[in-house]
């Protein structure tokens, strides 16, 4: 038996997929871990999806180019992060949503283009909750919004970087309007929403996964 600790060393960094061949997590400082990671990358051939670009995109590009690049990045992230966890229909549906949202003709130019960091949180959250795929919206500050709606009941979750989520639930319970809001991590969402019964119908499987 070769035992592996499943708790990744805490280096205070957000999830960054980078090239698929991840770090050698060392129990030393983040700086030395980064050096080792850089050094040992010479051992591996990068895969086509992970080759870095020649130069970063210049700032001040037209909006349609920035939206196009963002859309491409989200689709690539879906392929590399979600891998086999989305079935073809789910993937097609997600891409249609993204195509619709990031259409330059309907994008408010005063809004910040949605970020990969927010998209990563959205993907990780949706895969973790394993329920109905949400509808999508965006904030003016570059975050995705995931929404579930059933009649007058609505769950709205803003996906911030580093797995942070801000949620609002508005529902009718026994003829009374009830609302609740908070901020937590994607991982704790099922626990935080547990007192509110309706979320079960949106992601019933999450309750089985949530840490106690």
């Amino acid at each position, binding site marked *: 038996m070769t035992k592996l600790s499943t708790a990744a060393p805490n280096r205070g960094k957000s999830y960054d997929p980078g090239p698929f061949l991840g770090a050698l997590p060392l129990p030393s400082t983040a700086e030395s871990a980064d050096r080792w990671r850089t050094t040992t990358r010479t051992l591996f051939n990068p895969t086509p999806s992970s080759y870095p670009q020649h130069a970063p995109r210049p700032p001040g590009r037209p909006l349609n180019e920035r939206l196009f690049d963002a859309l491409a990045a989200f689709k690539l992230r879906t392929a590399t992060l979600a891998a086999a966890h989305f079935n073809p229909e789910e993937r097609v*549906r997600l891409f249609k949503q993204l195509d619709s949202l990031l259409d330059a003709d309907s994008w*408010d*130019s005063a*809004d910040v283009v949605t970020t990969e960091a927010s998209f990563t949180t959205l993907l990780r959250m949706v895969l973790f909750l394993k329920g109905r795929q949400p*509808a999508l919206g965006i904030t*003016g500050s570059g975050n995705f919004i995931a929404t579930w709606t059933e009649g007058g009941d*609505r769950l709205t979750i803003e996906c911030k970087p580093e797995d942070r989520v801000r949620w609002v639930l508005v529902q009718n319970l026994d003829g009374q309007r009830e609302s609740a809001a908070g901020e937590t991590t994607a991982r704790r969402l099922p626990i935080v929403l547990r007192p509110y019964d309706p979320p079960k119908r949106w992601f019933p499987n999450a309750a089985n996964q949530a840490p106690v």
Partner: protein
Amino acid sequence: MPPTKLPSDHHIVRNVAWGKLRKDENDPEKVIGVLGEAFKLRPGEDTLSTTWLEYFVGTRREQIFGAIRAMRASKLEIKTKSGFAIGNVGNVADVAAAHNYSIRVLHEPEDDNKAHVAVRRWPADDMALFELLAAEVWSEFVLDSEQDEGAQAAPDQSAWPPS
């Protein structure tokens, strides 16, 4: 002349960009409502910008056309597939008050929109309030695509105060 406080039974119209409309989970092109995000202030803003529905005379439909036309003619960028959320002033104020915000809904005409209304003392970012408004008292919406070509808007004249 000080700004006119809007009567509580009147309505204000807020432009909502495509990304801030609530969609059907199974059809990304089908709008089913408004997201609370539509009511968030942008950095640098200190009032929520809206347009006075009853500024325009005519049927309700004509008033809505009038308000939309006024917004389109203003500096505001109205993109395709955007929507317009219509809220009752009194109801909006009541919900805000329940969240401890004493808002003021004032007619403050601007050069590019004579029906402009500024909602003052509006919170910059209260997602719980905004979602509740979007779910309840500011949930009525009209899509830009629903405006008929050539439909007559109400004359651009103040309907208030009534003569």
